[in-house]
């Protein structure tokens, strides 16, 4: 079915609700297991996306969760706008797999929002139909304000329309919920369901709620201490666990000591293969006992990593790339170019580095049912991972979502935290188990955004314009969603496919571009990606350095290289880097934003390096640089102003101007927060952050060894927001973090006349650049 139908079923004595439910897709009737796997979509229990309660509350349910970038505000705004109710009346239920209909990936806000807009529009349409009947007026004569329909000389509220009856609206959907793939090697449908059809949507010009600074509903509870965070979940009879991790990322267990019963009377050691934990009803006892056990546990040695100081050669192992572009045409264009540039860029591994280490609670019942409490950004996918690990079906697993420390994409593929540990321990012990990772464990054992190296060539014509670029990208892939606990316990995990996101290797149309457009017109392009499995994945333990996506995957890598190349080409051409971009027929929205952001930064055109550039002295020298990105319907321009102290190599960002055109802006204030937060995260990566590892293990395992930006690092920030009514909604929660690194690198070049080609741009690296210049 592909259009909504409204049926009025039972008369209910009190209250009344309009329940929007899914039309049952084919999978839901494939069999009992499949139907039950559909969460609350069991045909005998009416699932709902949306309910209008008798008190006027509108309950909205989405499998996507608040990841700390404002979705809980935006979803409420989207629904309120289409339904014509006050956003304050929206009550969101997020993430729980047993209480939400659709699953999906929390970071994929645009799809989630499209779903809820349509749900709201279908609902509004049905309510208007009822109101027309009640008021004796045609639908076209009705208007709705704050949930009250008026027309034909009368008024009736949504609540009155649904009072005393149970109304079911069935709407069309496509897609499926996450499940274990038929061959048992991967997770299918990690992106959940989509609402289909074309309900009438409100014209943008009539928006009242979208475009306003609606607050995030969870904040009052957070600031008063009422929020039940993931770390606050306590179940009856629950045990606290601390994990005892191997000596290296590849080690296997040799021996576990006896627990000193006189010191730790209530604690217990639990092992399964290479998974070792200490549990106790008392958390502090578990901590101390785990420390004692850790000191005495013996592991095999392993030295299968290259070490982070010398890692780039290890990426160049694959000789069969994925390629896009015409090699012959690019070869000819490069050969015929008036001038060519050949440069190599690289970035080190970086970490999501949440402020709170991961924690999870699991309860595995004797009947095989599993409840997992998490702050995963993809509870449906996590559910499928857990089912795969336990070799059970997804209907046996419930995942409950709670707020947690921001994780910036780390949990987008399912669970890269304590979830598997907690499930395994609960299964072994027959009790609920809470596993709290330590910061050290979180920084040393979670997945990381992999480092990479890329060789780029550019051909410039006699006027200095880019006629061809060729790029070759070498990197471990970033989709290693194998759960640590499952790996160590020797239980089934997915077998990740080693591939690089298309956006990782070039100026690709989508999601690299906006509406299928590349940012600049460069006639001949060839992009090749050489991917590989995680470093150390073949270790005896099977763990290694797992590569995971992180905020803005794809562009977080390629923007540094491609935008740096454009900046270097501009310098080679003796052109101002903004004018140089304007000369390459930028995507029109990007061109507009370049101008606006340049104006906000008081940019005066000139080529780099600057007239006062120097490489000596202990007085700081200033520089400025620019970078852009286009992603998921949004254009971004960042301008960095820095001071470099040549003598010490120290780089300080004094001002950062960031412009965005994300189409229609939903919530200017929370977009601002994402812009500010993105600048800070990008600045950290540009200047400080690097996962340091030796031949066996990550050693950057606390905040001194993995320094992230502090308030002292914050530059003056200037922001430019451009809202458009004619360009749909674009992504605002990520992408900002990609522009600081290339903009800061360009600014350092502007200041000292040497181009940084790797991150982090540490003082030692700048000194090295100066000495080699």
């Amino acid at each position: 079915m592909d259009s909504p139908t409204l049926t009025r079923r039972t008369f209910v004595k009190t209250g009344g609700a309009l329940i929007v439910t899914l039309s049952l897709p084919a999978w839901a009737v494939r069999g009992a297991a499949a139907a039950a796997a559909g969460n609350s979509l069991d045909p005998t229990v009416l699932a709902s996306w949306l309910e209008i309660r008798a008190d006027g509350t509108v309950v909205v349910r989405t499998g996507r969760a608040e990841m700390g970038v404002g979705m809980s505000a935006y979803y409420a705004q989207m629904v309120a706008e289409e339904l014509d109710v006050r956003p304050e009346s929206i009550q969101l239920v997020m993430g729980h797999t047993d209480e939400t209909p659709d699953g999906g990936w929390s970071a994929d806000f645009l799809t989630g929002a499209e779903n809820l807009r349509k749900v709201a529009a279908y609902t509004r349409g049905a309510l208007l139909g009822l109101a027309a009947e009640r008021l004796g007026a045609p639908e076209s004569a009705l208007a709705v304000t704050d949930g009250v329909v008026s027309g034909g000389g009368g008024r009736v509220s949504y609540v009155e329309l649904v009072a005393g009856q149970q109304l079911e609206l069935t709407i069309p959907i496509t897609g499926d919920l996450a499940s274990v793939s038929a061959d048992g090697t991967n997770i299918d449908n990690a992106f959940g369901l989509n609402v289909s059809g074309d309900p009438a949507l409100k014209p943008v010009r009539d928006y009242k709620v979208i475009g306003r600074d609606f607050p995030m509903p969870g904040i009052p509870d957070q600031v008063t201490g009422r929020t039940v965070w993931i770390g606050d979940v306590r179940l009856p009879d629950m045990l606290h666990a601390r994990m005892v991790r191997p000596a290296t990322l590849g080690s296997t267990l040799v021996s576990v000591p006896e627990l000193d019963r006189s010191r730790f009377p209530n604690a217990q050691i639990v092992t399964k293969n290479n998974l070792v934990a200490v549990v106790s009803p008392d958390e502090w006892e578990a901590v101390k006992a785990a420390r004692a056990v850790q000191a005495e546990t013996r592991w095999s040695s392993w030295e299968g990593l290259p070490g982070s100081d010398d890692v780039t050669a290890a990426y160049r192992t694959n000789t069969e790339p994925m390629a896009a572009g015409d090699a012959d045409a690019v070869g000819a264009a490069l050969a015929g170019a008036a001038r060519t540039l050949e440069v190599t860029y690289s970035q080190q591994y970086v970490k999501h580095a949440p402020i709170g280490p991961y924690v999870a609670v699991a309860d595995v019942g004797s009947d095989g049912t599993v409840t997992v409490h998490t702050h995963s950004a993809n509870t449906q996918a996590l559910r499928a991972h857990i089912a795969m690990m336990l070799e059970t079906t997804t209907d046996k697993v419930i995942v409950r979502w709670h707020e947690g420390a921001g994780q910036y994409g780390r949990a987008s593929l399912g669970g890269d935290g304590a979830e598997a540990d907690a499930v395994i321990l609960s299964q072994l012990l027959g009790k609920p188990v809470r596993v709290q990772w330590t910061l050290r464990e979180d920084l040393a054992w979670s997945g990381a955004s992999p480092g990479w190296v890329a060789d780029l060539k550019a051909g410039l014509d006699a006027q200095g314009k880019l006629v061809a670029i060729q790029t070759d990208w070498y990197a471990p892939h970033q989709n290693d969603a194998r759960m640590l606990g499952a790996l160590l316990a020797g239980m089934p995990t997915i077998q990740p496919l080693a591939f690089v996101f298309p956006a990782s290797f070039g100026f690709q149309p989508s999601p690299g571009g906006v509406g299928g457009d590349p940012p600049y017109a460069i006639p001949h392009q060839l992009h090749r990606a050489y991917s590989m499995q995680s470093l150390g994945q073949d270790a005896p333990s099977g763990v290694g350095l797992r590569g995971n996506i992180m905020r803005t995957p794809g562009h977080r890598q390629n923007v540094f290289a491609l935008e740096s190349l454009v900046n270097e080409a501009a310098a080679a051409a003796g052109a101002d880097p903004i004018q140089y971009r304007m000369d390459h027929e930028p995507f029109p929205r990007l061109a507009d934003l370049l101008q606006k952001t340049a104006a906000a930064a008081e940019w005066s055109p000139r080529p780099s390096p600057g007239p006062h550039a120097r490489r000596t002295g202990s007085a700081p020298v200033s520089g400025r640089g620019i970078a852009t990105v286009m992603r998921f319907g949004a254009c971004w321009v960042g301008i960095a102003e820095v001071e470099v102290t040549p003598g010490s190599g120290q780089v300080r960002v004094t001002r950062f101007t960031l412009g965005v055109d994300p189409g229609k802006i939903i919530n200017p204030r929370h977009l601002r927060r994402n812009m500010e937060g993105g600048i800070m995260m990008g600045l950290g990566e540009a200047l400080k952050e690097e996962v340091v590892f030796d031949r066996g293990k990550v050693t950057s395992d606390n905040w001194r060894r993995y320094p992230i930006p502090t308030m002292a690092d914050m530059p003056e920030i200037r922001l430019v927001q451009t809202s458009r009514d004619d360009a749909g909604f674009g992504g605002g929660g990520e992408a900002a973090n990609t522009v600081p690194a290339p903009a800061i690198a360009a600014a350092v070049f502007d200041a000292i006349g040497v181009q940084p080609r790797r991150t982090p741009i540490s003082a030692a690296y700048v000194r090295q650049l100066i000495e080699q210049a």
Partner: protein
Amino acid sequence: MASITLTVNGATRTVEAAADAPLLYVLRNQLGLSGPKLGCEMAQCGACAVLADGEEIRSCVTRAANVAGRSIVTIEGLAAVWAEQRGLDATEAAATLHPIQQAWIDVQVPQCGYCQSGMMIAAADLLERNPTPTEADIREAFSNTPPSPHLCRCGMYPAIIEAVQRAARAMAD
């Protein structure tokens, strides 16, 4: 196990805890106060910060037994501190947040919010010492006060500065 008597958010509470138990664990597990957060557990981030006699301490590295006799305040108790300072009656007090909490809501400081309990405690500590801090004072307090900077991985530092100054104005009124 030892019997430890603490004054927390104005109430006297006696708990049975290990003599070396960190205050953070006692607050969260024995006293049901989940405002202070577990972060680094090594005095490097500020997520666990609480006030002891009005001064910020890191509850992750402070033994509960060592603060017996000091007045501990978590974000759950901030509103009551303000009500007492202002002499609000019970009805007013119930409806009033501490100006720092109100500023955090009004400015919409949190993204994930995990660090923000510690940030509000740091703000209370600062405003107690310096009721009219400049931006430079705030940067200094949040970055360079021992034992460590207050870290926000979401990068909400600009909003924190705005909120501290807003709270300062409200408290001066």
